[in-house]
């Protein structure tokens, strides 16, 4: 009887606490008064805790689309070899290469490479599982992809879902630094593929512009990594990326003020002009530095 009573007490406490957590109403004002917190202090506290910051990087899907629209051609040699998968046994190498394979998967899908897409989705699934990310890629998703290999919209939807499952799982489980490493790996692979394609394409002005555009997202990536710089894995990646940031600092970019143009029933256009001046020397150094960094990650 005492045993049953104890279970009842625990269950009651659990239910009470659960509902208090789920209650969107949260903070009871009377309790705040009981805590003798005066109104001014409360306002000040609210302001202090108010501003959270998110750093959102371009997803691998977006990078792949930008490259395709810039005139890139598919070349599987530029992607990481699936045979390297067993080499990734540390958290750092698994997370970075999960990002790399996500970028490769997006790239293959964007160019309608069905066999390669399924192959890279399977590699992504394996690495996500090894990192303890539950249900990032379900077996049913692989089957869905196999059944939709000729439908790019469906493939992109599947990849988008897979990315969201991974980074939401990691953030919810207080492993945001692993999510940051995955994003860093994807960003590096995207830039690596872009530089490889630009180097092998005669008319590459748009690709070069896209590579220079990455200076903007690199700033966001650096800000994201700075939040976790006490983590040794993050610190190492941050320092490697600093070399690329220093090279981007040598590119001269001027952008005019943005002018908004709204047209009824259409999306708003943010009009502005950008002038980019990059020397061959700096461009080649960016390509070489990215090449070295990426090959160090995937070896």
């Amino acid at each position: 009887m005492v045993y049953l009573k104890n279970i009842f007490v625990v269950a009651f406490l659990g239910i009470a606490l659960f509902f208090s957590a789920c209650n969107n109403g949260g903070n009871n004002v009377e309790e705040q008064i009981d805590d003798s917190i005066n109104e001014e202090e409360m306002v000040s506290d609210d302001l202090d805790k108010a501003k959270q910051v998110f750093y959102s990087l371009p997803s691998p899907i977006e990078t792949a689309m930008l490259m395709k629209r810039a005139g890139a051609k598919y070349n599987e040699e530029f992607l990481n070899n699936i045979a390297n998968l067993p080499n990734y046994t540390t958290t750092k190498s698994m997370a970075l290469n999960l990002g790399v394979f996500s970028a490769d998967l997006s790239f293959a899908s964007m160019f309608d490479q069905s066999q390669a897409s399924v192959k890279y989705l399977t590699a992504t699934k394996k690495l996500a599982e090894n990192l303890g990310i539950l249900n990032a890629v379900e077996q049913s998703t692989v089957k869905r992809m196999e059944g939709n290999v000729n439908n790019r919209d469906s493939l992109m939807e599947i990849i988008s879902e897979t990315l969201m499952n991974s980074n939401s799982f990691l953030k919810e489980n207080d492993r945001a630094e692993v999510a940051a490493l995955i994003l860093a790996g994807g960003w590096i692979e995207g830039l690596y593929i872009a530089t490889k394609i630009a180097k092998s394409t005669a008319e590459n002005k748009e690709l070069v512009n896209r590579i220079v555009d990455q200076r903007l997202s690199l700033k966001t990536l650096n800000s994201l990594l700075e939040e976790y710089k006490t983590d040794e894995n993050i610190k190492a990646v941050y320092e490697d990326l600093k070399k690329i940031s220093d090279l981007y600092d040598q590119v001269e970019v001027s952008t005019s003020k943005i002018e908004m143009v709204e047209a009824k029933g259409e999306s708003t256009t943010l009009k502005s002009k950008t002038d980019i001046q990059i020397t061959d020397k700096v461009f080649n150094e960016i390509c070489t530095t990215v090449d070295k960094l990426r090959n160090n990650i995937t070896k």
Partner: protein
Amino acid sequence: MKNIFRTIALFSVLAILPLAGNAQCKTFAKKTCKMELLPYVHDGIYNATILSEGETVELFKTFYSGQEYRLTVCGDEKLPPIEFQVLDSDKNVLYDNKTKKFAKSWDFKLESSQMLVISIQVQTSDELSDVIAEGCVSVLVGFLNVEDSFDQN
């Protein structure tokens, strides 16, 4: 023995409580907010958090020239309206949904790539209440899947 069991059970309940809110937020972002993006393709990046009335969150993101974007900000239905502003790198306000009856989405494209800041604030409720509303707020970005190439000139 029974006390040990009771203590373990109690701590287990306490341990999972913070996750309950987060899991709710993920479901909200995936099932509710993502629908607002259609027919744009979600970029796969998850940005969601629990906010109270008056709280602000900022999102830094690079948007690329030539792409067509939809930015969607959604909040739990129990929250007051959510204001979002889009600012350039000099903090000039480019868009404010308050002037559009707190529209959830904004469609736009850029002539040159820019890093923009999306500043989101949960408004404070006008109604007198002894509780401060709190709920999930999600910011998602989608882009159109288009085939045409960029102008190479």
